[in-house]
């Protein structure tokens, strides 16, 4: 039943089209239903596809239309259905659906309701196409399309200058990544003469043999794209600001789906990556570093959503680390679980913000658990999953990828160390967040505290569903290395195995590892408890204790400021210089020509004195010249 695959993207697109055309004028609130219907439809079809292909996961394609044929460049728009696609689709559609439902409640009072439910299905469509793309160009097209949606949704409240600024920042940072991607793409076409996945993969070994340097370059360039999209250091700066967008957006786009596109892409191109160790190492290192780097920053953030944002960055870092060591399945596994619990956490924080009417600063929260039990419970489940407490989803996936890293040996040990440290900090900041938000004595103004309320059902139900997911999703990966997902994805990542990057761990190893990571997580939680609960001090006090470090972390290592002044400022300066140059030099020359000509004319004009004798003189002079010329000719 692959031939109906085109329904998956089509349904959300239809929803988008309807809402976009008629939303403002006629549909108004009904747009929500239409959007939900569309996404639900996509989810259903996806599920059907998935089930129908549980046993046979080999790739199939659905050709749609010819995009362009120019000389030896020919490109068809084709949908691809294979294991990886389906897994991604499931994650995307299910989470999307949850978020859609949730949004109906969350955005209920927003004047831009219809706009919101126009953008959101558009994003889902773009994301689906991105996942289902069968060649680099289509991938790139929707790679940018999702970027556009994120731009639109971050800047959703456009009267806020900060929102627009964040949106543009996101778009531009992504564009930088995309340029890398585009160059990689062009190089790929230059090298392979095609953009189709399978054809590229088929030629990859040969190319690796002939010009490995070029192959590495391509992989690195593509990875630059991934860094942009998945907010890896140093292109991560946009993601925290992206929290300006409505919370459901943060949940869907900036936690569950879009930001994972980078991971998906590298995984998709595993046949290439496994052939270039250099690229792999780079990916792994960048990932690991980002994981730790972001986690540290997460410790010092007070905005509940920013904490989650940095945690997302850090988690994505872990996934790249896994990719880098060839543990593609593990990465995808973590991607899936992460989608659930991080989505859950974001929606939960949204629910908190919603309940405390737009309070985001954890320093002015606390003791909310009693007020909003459902949110609290689900939130804690999500937190545990994130910290990697057995048997929640996060545990299995994170544990697996850490294990794989360790097994890969060599640089792997370093990576493992970084990863482990990162997950320790993860536990710390996660529970710092939980404690500061839900427990202890409230730091809210009493009157506001009185108004705190649990969110409506339409919001809590998704929370619960996702909580279940966050709790159980891990079991598709159990037992480690042989879980459902592993078998399902086995063929897709065959290349890694052939390249000998997959190491079968011994049971003992697995068990010890599990123990270790559980302890790490628990230790983290204890630290958080110790600092923020037992002698529940004001967070400021904690900050005060370690002022310099705290300042450094709170300001995100001053990276944003660096970008603003050096990059943006530099560009603007050059622009100003050129503008001046254009106006005064380039155009100046043009006007100068005019001036010179008219000047010469004016000079000649002076000769027209109006005095007869001068006129006669010029006649005589002319005559003399002519004769002189003749005399000259005679010689």
């Amino acid at each position, binding site marked *: 039943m692959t031939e109906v695959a085109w329904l998956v993207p089509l349904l959300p697109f239809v929803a988008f089209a309807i809402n976009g055309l008629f939303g403002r004028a006629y549909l108004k609130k009904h747009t929500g239903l239409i959007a939900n219907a569309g996404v639900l439809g996509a989810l259903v079809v996806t599920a059907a596809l998935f089930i129908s292909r549980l046993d046979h996961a080999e790739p199939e394609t659905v050709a749609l239309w010819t995009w362009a044929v120019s000389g030896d460049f020919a490109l068809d728009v084709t949908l691809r259905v294979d294991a990886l696609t389906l897994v991604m689709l499931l994650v995307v559609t299910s989470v999307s659906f949850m978020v859609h439902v949730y949004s109906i409640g969350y955005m209920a009072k927003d004047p831009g309701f219809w706009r919101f439910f126009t953008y959101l299905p558009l994003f889902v469509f773009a994301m689906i196409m991105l996942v289902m793309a069968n060649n680099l160009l289509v991938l790139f097209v929707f790679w940018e399309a999702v970027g556009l949606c994120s731009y639109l949704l971050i800047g959703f409240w*456009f009267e806020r200058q900060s929102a627009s600024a964040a949106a543009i920042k996101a778009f531009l940072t992504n564009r930088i990544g995309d340029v890398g991607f585009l160059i990689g793409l062009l190089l790929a076409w230059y090298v392979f003469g095609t953009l189709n996945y399978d054809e590229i993969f088929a030629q990859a070994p040969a190319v690796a043999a002939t010009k490995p340097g070029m192959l590495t370059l391509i992989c690195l360039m593509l990875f630059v794209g991934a860094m942009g999209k998945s907010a890896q250091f140093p292109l991560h700066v946009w993601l925290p600001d992206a929290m300006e967008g409505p919370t459901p957006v943060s949940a869907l786009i900036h936690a569950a789906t879009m930001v994972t596109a980078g991971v998906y892409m590298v995984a998709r191109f595993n046949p290439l990556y496994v052939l270039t160790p250099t690229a792999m190492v780079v990916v792994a290192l960048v990932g690991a570093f980002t994981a730790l780097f972001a986690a540290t920053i997460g410790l010092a953030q007070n905005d509940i959503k920013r904490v989650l944002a940095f945690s997302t960055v850090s988690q994505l870092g872990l996934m790249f680390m896994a990719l880098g060591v060839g543990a593609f399945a593990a990465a995808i596994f973590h991607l899936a679980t992460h989608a659930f619990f991080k989505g859950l956490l974001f929606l939960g924080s949204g629910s908190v913000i919603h309940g405390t009417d737009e309070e985001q600063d954890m320093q002015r929260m606390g003791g909310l658990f009693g007020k909003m039990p459902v949110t609290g419970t689900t939130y804690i489940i999500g937190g545990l999953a994130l910290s990697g407490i057995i048997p929640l989803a996060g545990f299995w996936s994170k544990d697996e990828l850490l294990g794989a890293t360790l097994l890969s040996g060599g640089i792997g040990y370093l990576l493992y160390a970084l990863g482990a440290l990162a997950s320790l900090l993860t536990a710390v900041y996660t529970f710092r967040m939980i404690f500061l938000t839900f427990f202890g004595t409230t730091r809210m103004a009493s009157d506001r505290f009185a108004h705190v309320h649990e969110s409506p059902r339409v919001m809590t139900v998704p929370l619960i569903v996702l909580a279940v997911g966050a709790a159980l999703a891990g079991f598709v990966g159990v037992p480690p290395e042989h879980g459902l997902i592993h078998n399902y994805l086995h063929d897709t990542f065959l290349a890694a195995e052939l390249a000998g990057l997959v190491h079968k761990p011994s049971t003992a190893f697995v068990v010890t590892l599990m123990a270790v990571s559980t302890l790490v997580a628990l230790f983290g939680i204890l630290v958080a408890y110790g600092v923020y609960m037992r002698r529940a001090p004001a967070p400021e006090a904690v900050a005060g204790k370690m002022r310099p470090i705290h300042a450094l972390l709170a300001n995100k290592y001053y990276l944003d400021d660096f970008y603003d002044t050096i990059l943006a400022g530099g560009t603007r300066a050059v622009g100003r210089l050129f503008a001046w140059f254009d106006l005064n030099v380039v155009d100046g020359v043009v006007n100068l020509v*005019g001036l010179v000509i008219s000047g010469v004319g004016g000079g000649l004009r002076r000769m027209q004195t109006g005095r007869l004798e001068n006129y006669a003189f010029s006649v005589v002079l002319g005559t003399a010249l002519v004769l002189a010329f003749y005399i000259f000719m005679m010689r």
Partner: protein
Amino acid sequence: MESFPILSLVLWLPLLAAVIVLFLRERRAMFAVAIAGTLLSLALSVAVWAGFAPGAGMQFQERFDWLPALGIQYALGVDGISLLMVLLNTFLFFLCIVYAWASVHERVKEYLFTMLLLEVGITGVFLALDFVLFYVFWEIMLIPMYVLIGVWGGERRVYATIKFVLYTLFGSLLMLVAILALYFVHGNTTGVYTFDILELTQGTYGERFQLWAFLAFFLAFAIKVPMVPFHTWLPDAHVEAPTTGSVILAGILLKMGGYGFIRFSLPLLPDASHVAQTAILVLSVIAILYGALVALMQTDLKKLIAYSSVSHMGFVTLGIFSFTQQGLDGAIMQMFSHGLVTGALFLCVGQLYERTHDRLIANLGGLAHRWPVFAALFLFFSLASIGLPGLSGFVGEFMVLLGAFMAGTRIFGVLAVLGIILSAAYMLWMYWRVMLGTLSDAHRRLQDLTRLETAVLAALALVVVWAGVEPQTFIELFTADTSGIVQAITESETAALLAE
């Protein structure tokens, strides 16, 4: 079909309309005639499209002796390249006249006459198969444009329009000399004295001569395109021109330069083209980055878009002089798309200006509150202009880059790619300043687009999406012709020399 002079009809119908307009009194009737004329000519050009056989070379040819004493003919014909340009031309003119119905109220008769005359000139440039005829149209179009800017323009219109005319005239007159030289060199070598473009294209010319001729042609076309550093007339002209004037200017006039390069410089003077290739590629890349950077710092909406045009047309020349199939096809698509998108952007700015009477970015802001429809369309075209995939802008840029990479001039490709970051930067920044943020009280009670304006922009948007989602429709028209050109130029002996 061949016997029926359909091209002449496409060409002269607007003139007929113009003449009729002269004798009419009331505004309504004049517009009715003008719209009818442009619409008919659009319809006919679509009919040509329908009857067009891709890859069959010049079609629908018409030939009559015009000035046999000098070997000058009245010869028309279309191949894919010119067909696309003609379509763009008739389409945009139709929309402009329709738009003018809402916006132009003073000196309507003169306005319509000028516009229709302009259409004749431009269409002729793309249809002419005789060099003199081509040149005649090339210059006929000067005067209406001059009047359009000079009469309906802004404060510094006189300076701008005279600058435009002189600059363009300078280039094209040199081209005229080159054309004549071509005529004689060809005549002296083959004994056939003719201005027939196809015939002349068959001929081969000496290296030295080619260089000189190329220089002359280059000046004419580079000024039209415009390439840095011959571009400074453009911002002035755009800023001062009335809305429709800017639309035509950016939409089609600039394309005449690119068209000239493709139709004449490459096939006629392949060796010289090879010699000049690197230089022009460098200029193109400079244009892309330089134009974008300058645009980044503009305070006037129209100037900003003008410089963005410089930057975008840089891609066109980059593609053309990559001497690759993809490069040329990309360049043509880029011209097509730029015509639609920038035209639309100027319409948007025009509507903005008519409402706020302000073009300074600093004085605007938050307009999206008042005009959701306008905001949406404006955003749409801004995105199209920064080459968002799925819209027409991307196709051209992408294929041009493909070409640039294939030409073994990868460095130019890489540099050009950086342009797309900058373009995103200035466009989004502009959109933010103008449409987003808080609305100033001065603009509280402004009306959103009328049905007419929306319809005009929507029509453009439709084509933009079409060209972005399924560009093949358009590419298949001309790709065969471009492949011929590519072949010709790669076969020139200098190419062989360079290859060694």
